[in-house]
C-alpha cells in the first residue's frame, strides 16, 4: 500500500508531523461531434500530496515550517525517501508563525449519496448523454459538439495526529456548443455544466435553454445605449457574483489583508434598497458537485452562518488561519447557501432591465469586486418589449452596488451553492455594440 510506504518514508526522514492526501480517480470520457461519438477515453489515476511540518523554537515565539510535495503513484522506496528527506529539510528551514495541526474528530461527517452509486458507469453516462440530446434540433438549433466526463473521486486524508478519513464523490462535468442558423449566418453559443446526480431533467433543461438562446442570438440586434437599466443575472452567472461574499470570508485572505471583509463588517449599506445578505457556508448540498465532508487538512466540516443581517459574524478559516486570527476554526467550507430575497423572480423580471444570458467570458474579480464581459446574448426588457441583443460589453462592481442587490425569492442548486435563481444589479455600465 502506497500510504504505508509513504509513512515509512516519513519516519525514516525524521518527520514528526505530516499529512498525506490520496486521491483516486476513475473516469470515463465521451467526445461527440454532432451526435456521433468521436473519441472515448478511460482514465485511472492515483495521486499523493504529502505535507511535512516542522516546529522551531526561535525566540521569542515558536515557529512552524511546512513543505508540500507530490509523490507519484508507482514511485519506488528510494525515490519516496529522497523526496521526503528534501521535504523535511525544506520544512525545517521555514520559520513561519506557529499554528496547530488538524486533530481527529469523533463526530460523524455529513454524507450525501448519489444516484450514480447504483448505476454501472456506462449506463450513468448514457442516461446523461440522452438527457443532454433530448431537445436537440429545437426550433432548428442543434448541438454542435459535446464533451462529457464522469468520474468517481475517492479521497483519503491521513495525518500524524490521528486523522484518518475517507470519502467518495461523483463528479460529472462537460461542455457543449449549440448552433443556430445556416451557412455564413450560423452562430454558436458555448456552455459548461457540472453535476453529481443523474438529474436528467435539469440537464435537459440546461441544453434547452441554450438552444432557445442560440435561436434568439440569430435574430439579436446590436446592443444599443442602455443607460440606467439594471442588470439581471441568473444561474451560474449570478452565482459568480454571489461567490464574492464567500471568497471574501476566507480567513487566509483576511489574514493577508487582501480580503474586503472582517468580522463585524457590514457587507451592505445603511439605507440601501437591496436585500440584506444572509449567507451560510456548508460542506455538502444535494445537487452541488463541489462539496466535501472534510477540508483539505481532514478537518470535519459543518455548516456555519457567516453573514447574518448583512453583517460578517464568522470567517471561513482553516485550522492554521483560525489560529493566526485567534478565531475558532470552521475548516474550508466549499459551498454556500445564500438566503432568498424579498421579491419573486417574476417581479424582478417585471422591472425594466437588461438580462445578460451569455458573455464571451464573464469575470468577477473577488479581490476588487469588478465584474464584466462582452455580451454574446442579452435581452433588453423595457416598454413592455423583450429584445435580444448582442455585442458591446457590461462592466460593474460588487462594491459599488453594496446594499443595492435584489435577490429572487426562489433558490436553486448551482455548482457551489444553493442560492437565489436570479439577482438584479442596479449600477452597471453597458457599452453599446456600435
Amino acid at each position: 500500500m502506497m500510504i504505508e510506504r509513504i509513512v515509512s518514508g516519513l519516519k525514516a526522514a525524521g518527520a514528526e508531523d505530516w499529512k498525506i492526501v490520496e486521491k483516486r480517480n476513475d473516469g470515463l470520457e465521451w467526445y461527440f461531434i454532432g451526435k456521433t461519438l468521436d473519441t472515448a477515453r478511460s482514465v485511472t489515476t492515483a495521486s499523493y500530496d504529502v505535507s511535512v511540518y516542522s516546529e522551531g523554537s526561535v525566540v521569542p515565539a515558536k515557529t512552524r515550517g511546512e513543505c508540500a510535495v507530490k509523490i507519484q503513484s508507482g514511485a519506488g522506496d528510494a525515490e519516496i525517501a529522497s523526496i521526503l528527506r528534501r521535504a523535511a529539510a525544506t520544512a525545517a528551514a521555514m520559520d513561519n508563525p506557529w499554528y496547530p495541526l488538524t486533530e481527529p474528530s469523533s463526530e460523524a461527517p455529513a454524507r450525501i449519496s448519489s444516484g450514480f452509486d447504483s448505476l454501472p458507469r456506462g449506463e450513468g453516462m448514457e442516461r446523461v448523454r440522452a438527457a443532454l440530446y433530448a431537445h436537440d434540433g429545437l426550433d432548428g438549433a442543434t448541438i454542435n459538439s459535446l464533451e462529457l466526463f464522469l468520474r468517481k473521486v475517492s479521497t483519503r486524508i491521513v495525518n500524524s495526529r490521528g486523522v484518518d478519513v475517507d470519502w467518495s464523490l461523483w463528479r460529472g462535468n462537460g461542455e457543449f456548443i449549440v448552433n443556430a442558423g445556416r451557412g455564413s449566418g450560423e452562430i454558436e453559443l458555448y456552455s459548461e455544466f457540472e453535476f453529481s446526480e443523474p438529474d436528467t431533467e435539469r440537464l435537459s433543461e440546461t441544453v434547452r435553454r441554450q438552444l432557445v438562446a442560440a435561436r434568439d442570438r440569430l435574430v439579436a440586434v446590436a446592443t444599443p445605449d442602455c443607460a440606467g437599466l439594471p442588470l439581471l443575472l441568473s444561474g451560474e452567472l449570478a452565482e459568480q457574483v454571489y461567490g464574492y461574499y464567500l471568497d471574501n470570508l476566507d480567513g487566509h485572505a483576511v489574514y493577508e489583508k487582501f480580503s474586503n471583509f472582517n468580522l463585524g463588517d457590514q457587507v451592505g449599506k445603511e439605507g440601501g434598497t437591496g436585500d440584506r445578505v444572509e449567507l451560510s457556508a456548508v460542506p455538502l448540498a444535494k445537487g452541488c458537485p463541489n462539496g466535501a465532508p472534510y477540508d483539505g487538512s481532514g478537518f470535519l466540516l459543518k455548516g456555519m452562518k457567516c453573514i447574518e443581517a448583512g453583517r460578517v459574524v464568522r470567517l471561513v478559516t482553516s485550522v492554521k488561519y483560525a489560529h493566526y486570527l485567534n478565531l475558532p476554526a470552521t475548516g474550508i467550507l466549499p459551498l454556500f447557501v445564500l438566503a432568498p430575497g424579498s421579491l419573486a423572480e417574476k417581479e424582478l423580471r417585471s422591472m425594466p432591465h437588461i438580462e445578460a444570458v451569455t458573455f464571451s467570458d464573464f469575470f468577477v474579480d473577488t479581490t476588487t469586486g469588478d465584474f464584466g464581459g462582452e455580451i454574446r446574448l442579452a435581452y433588453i426588457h423595457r416598454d413592455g418589449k423583450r429584445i435580444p441583443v448582442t455585442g458591446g460589453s457590461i462592466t460593474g462592481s460588487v462594491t459599488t452596488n453594496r446594499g443595492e442587490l435584489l435577490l429572487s425569492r426562489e433558490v436553486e442548486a448551482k455548482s457551489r451553492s444553493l442560492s437565489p435563481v436570479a439577482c438584479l444589479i442596479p449600477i452597471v455600465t453597458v457599452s453599446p455594440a456600435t
Partner: protein
Amino acid sequence: MHECEASERLNQCKPRLRSAIAALEKSYGYISVLGTDSKGISFGVTARERRVDDSQWSERGFVFRAQKDGRIVEYALSELPEGNLASHVAARLNGLFDSAGGARSYPSLPDEAARASWFAKVAVDPFSADPETILDRLDAVRKTVAETSPEIVFARAALEYMRVSKVFISPRRDLEQSFIWGQAYVVAVARRGELTKENYEAFSGLKGLEMLEEMAPCAQPFAKETIELLGAEKIAPGEYEVIATPDITGLIAHEAFGHGVETDMFVKGRALAKDYLGKRVASEIVDMYDGAQGAEQCGSYLFDDEGSFATRTLIIKDGVLVAGISDIQSALALGTEPTGNGRRQAFDHKAYARMTNTYIQSGKDRLEDMMASVKHGYLLAKMNSGMEDPKNWGIQLVLSLAREIRDGKLTGKVAGPVVCAGYVPQVLSDISMISGDFELHGSGYCGKGHKEYVKVSAGGPYIKTRMRLG
C-alpha cells in the same frame, strides 16, 4: 550551461513500454504510448509567510492510444500495473472499443519511423539552488513593492520551475525530450477607502534562476503602477485608436487568429477561418506565426503529445490567411498535415489542436511615431484575460490598465478595468503601424474554452489598431 537530464523513471519504464507496444501492435491498426514525468518547484513569499512546495503542475503517467477499424480510443493511467502490461492495457482499450461501436472512423493514424531526443540547457539549474537564497531574493523584491506606499496592503513574490520530461513510443517511433521552463510573479493589492485594486507583473521563459535578475529592477515601477490603478477612471464607452504593448499584441494574436485556426475547430464547423483560407483577413503589413520551433519560450518543445515533431506555421502572410495549426486527429479528418500542435494539459487529458508560441512579426515603425499619430486613444498596457470566438469572430480582452493618449502624448490618466471588444478581421485590418520591437511572454496558461490548460507564449511588437473599449 546546465543540460536537463532525462527522467530516470521514464528510462526505467521504457523496456516495459516497448515490449507492451510490440505485443499490442498485433491487435490494433495503431498503438502508441506517451509517458510524462514532469517535476516542478514553487517558491512564494508574503509579509507573513515563506513557502517552498512542489508545483501543482507536476505529473507522471502514461496514455495509450489505439485505433481499430478507424475508431480511436485512449486509456490513461498514472501507474504501470505489475504483471502483463499489454494484457492490462488491451482489456481497457477493448472495453472502450466495445462501447464505442458507432464511433467516427478516421483514416489510419500515421506512424513514420523516427528516433530523436532533445535535452535543453539553462544557464543556472534551479533544482540545485539553495531554497533559502531564492526566498531571500524574492523577499527583497516583495519588500520593495510593499514599502513603496502604505496603500499597498498585500504583496507577494513567487517563482516556479518545471522540468518537463516526456517519451513517445510506437512501433516505429522512439522520442524523448526534457526541458525546463520557469515563471515568476509579483502580485500586489492596493486599497484606498472602499476601493481595492490588484496588479501583477510576470516573467517567464525556458530559463533557470537567471529570471530572478529580471525581477528586481521592475519592483518599484510595478508598485507605482499599482498605486496608479487606484486612480483609474471608467472609460467613456466607444471606439478608439489603440496601441497594444507586445503583451497585448500577443493576446490579440492568440485570441483572434490563434484559437481561430486550431483545426479541430474546423472539423467541428466551429471556426469561420476554414472558409477564409487564401483570403485577406488582416492588414497587408501583418504576418503571424505559431510554432513550438518558432521561438525559444514556454511553448517550445521537440515533439508534441501525439509524437509529431514541432514546426513553425505561418498563419497569416501579408494579411492573407494561409494555414491552420493541427493535431493528428483533425489533420486526418481534413486531409492535411499535422503541424506538431497536438497538446494535452497532462497525460490524463485528451490531445487537442493547441497553440505554442504565437506572435505577430515585427514591422518597421518606431513606437514614438506610433504614439505621435494618435489623436485620442489608449495605450493598452496590462492584460487580465482574453476569450476567443472563432465561429463569429468576436474578440474579448479584459485589461486591468489602459493609459490615455491625447495629441500623441500620454496624459497621465489611466483606465481600468477595460473590456476591449471587436470584430476580428476589422481589428486586424485596422492595424496601420507595427513597431520593430519583439517580445514574447509565457507566464500564462491557455485554456480551450474554460479547461485544458497548456503552457504557451504570445507576443510580438507594438501595434496600432482600433478597438471598442468599455
